[in-house]
């Protein structure tokens, strides 16, 4: 901002960029608006929509099946994220703190489940599970979800560990802390935000995962797989109502979070 001309130029470029950003935001939210409109349409479709109704929301709360599978999705998501946090964090320590040959290959292998197309992961796990004669259940879906949430956590945490370097832990140990104490009081607090960020994203991905779950599901279904089964006959407007509620819930959660947590986190980052 050394001169007046430059500042105004920057601002102008900013305007163009902001307009473009707005366009992308509209692109991102247009389908969501359509979904909201669907959820209030009395005729099950947008075609011939006349008037507004909340009957689908009412019916939603009487539909035990949808509520059940919604709960299933949350259960799988939370359990998968919890397990992934354990496996992934331990793995992150392993990969950053321990020297061993073939680390590059190891790193690539770990990343596979997250970056391979879902159809391959679902397929390979199904073939594996069938060979072992494991019955399809919540556990098999959980296996699938742990497979792609673990790398997410691991890389998130390991890059934080890398950035930190070993000096903090060394200092703590030099001051006489046991390894356990070092872990609890020094290391964990420092990787906490990385773990939370990874957990959030992992849960998001798990909550909407369909292809892997589709292959691994028996009678115990998650919401996306349930919807996929409905797709041929038609998504009930209750489904749009679920989406509307999820949208409302996540929007308000995020507004709250950025209001009370986000800003302070930002400030912490600046201070560091």
């Amino acid at each position, binding site marked *: *901002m*050394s001169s007046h001309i*430059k500042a105004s*130029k*920057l601002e102008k470029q*900013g305007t163009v*960029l902001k307009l*473009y*950003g707005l366009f*992308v*935001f509209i*692109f*991102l939210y247009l*389908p*969501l608006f*359509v979904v909201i409109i669907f959820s209030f349409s009395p005729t099950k479709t*947008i075609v011939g929509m006349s008037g507004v109704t909340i009957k689908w929301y009412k019916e939603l709360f009487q539909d035990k099946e949808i509520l059940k599978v919604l709960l299933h999705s949350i259960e799988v998501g939370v359990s998968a994220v919890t397990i992934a946090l*354990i*496996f992934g964090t*331990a*793995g992150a*320590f392993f990969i950053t*703190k*321990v*020297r*061993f040959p073939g680390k590059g290959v*190891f790193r*690539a292998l770990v990343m596979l*489940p997250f*970056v*391979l*197309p879902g*159809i*391959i992961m679902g*397929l*390979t*796990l199904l*073939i594996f599970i069938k*060979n072992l004669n494991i019955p399809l259940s919540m556990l098999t879906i959980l296996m699938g979800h742990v*497979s792609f949430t673990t790398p997410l956590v*691991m890389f*998130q945490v390991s*890059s934080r560990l890398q950035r930190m370097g070993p000096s903090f832990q060394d200092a703590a140990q030099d001051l006489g802390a046991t390894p356990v104490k070092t872990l609890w009081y020094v290391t964990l607090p420092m990787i906490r935000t*990385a773990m939370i960020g*990874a957990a959030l994203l992992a849960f*998001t991905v798990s909550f*909407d995962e369909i292809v892997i779950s589709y292959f691994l599901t028996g009678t115990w279904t998650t*919401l996306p797989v349930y919807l*996929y089964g409905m797709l041929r006959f038609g*998504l009930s407007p209750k*489904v*749009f109502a679920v*989406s509307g509620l*999820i949208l409302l819930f*996540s929007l308000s959660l*995020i507004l709250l*979070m*950025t209001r009370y947590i*986000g800003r302070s*986190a930002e400030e912490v980052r600046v201070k560091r």
Partner: protein
Amino acid sequence: MDKIKSRFDSPRSYFKGIPIVVWLLFLVVVPLVFTFIMSFYSSEGLEIEKTLTLKNYKLFFTDTIYPRILFKSIRLALSVSIISIAMAYPLAYMVSFKMIRGRNLLFMMCIIPLWVSYLVRIIAWRSILGNRGVINSILMAIGITKGPLEFFLYNKFAIAITLTYICIPFVFIPVYTALEKIPKNIINAANDLGANEFHSFLNVVLPLSLPGLITGFIFSFIIALGDYIIPQQLGGTQGIMFGNLIYSQFGFAFNWPFGAALGFILFVISVIILGLTAKFGSTEGGFLGE
């Protein structure tokens, strides 16, 4: 300090690796090996013949439809990832560099669409792109076109636009976090030295955000390469992709071995893409670009 310890670590430290190695073996390596072996079996009616044969791979290379559809899918995945980057990168740049307040809010706003089921979102796209959909209704209402434009839906365009839509958050997240890592005073310094914004972007910001960009590229490319639901729902008569070919082997065809072979070919391609991009350090950066 690193140099002093640069031999193998003490065996005790290897205990840390047990969970991840167990996970790796049971959920990645062994299933992949099983699939690889199955791709050499053959299918006889409803039974799987467990004698090893190269039949499946031979079929892939001799019947022209399989390689052709594979290339079609790769082309599509490439265009989808390029468009996704073109849409998500400027957005991330804007949020990271042009917003004084509300950055976290905007960041989360880009993730929220992921919370609404993927299926619901693609059905919504169908009603946006159709002859009586949102876009055509608007175009006709303001008099730009007289009749509905048909090229929006049931073709490659519809597949590309919907896949792009699905991919944008997955490009945005790594790019944004890579950009956030760049200290803002570097840009200011570059600007003070007389560089205009474009130059400082090209010489400073872009190179520093490259790992995030590459990660975003990988995500979108892989998502687009493997998807079969969007082509099936919105692709119309052009809606056959490699994923659909794989998927169709698991229904009436009941040709799991051939499906496994096709899956393995897709696996090899994904690994090649990962290998080609690995030298840019994408895996070092973490998914959120830490």
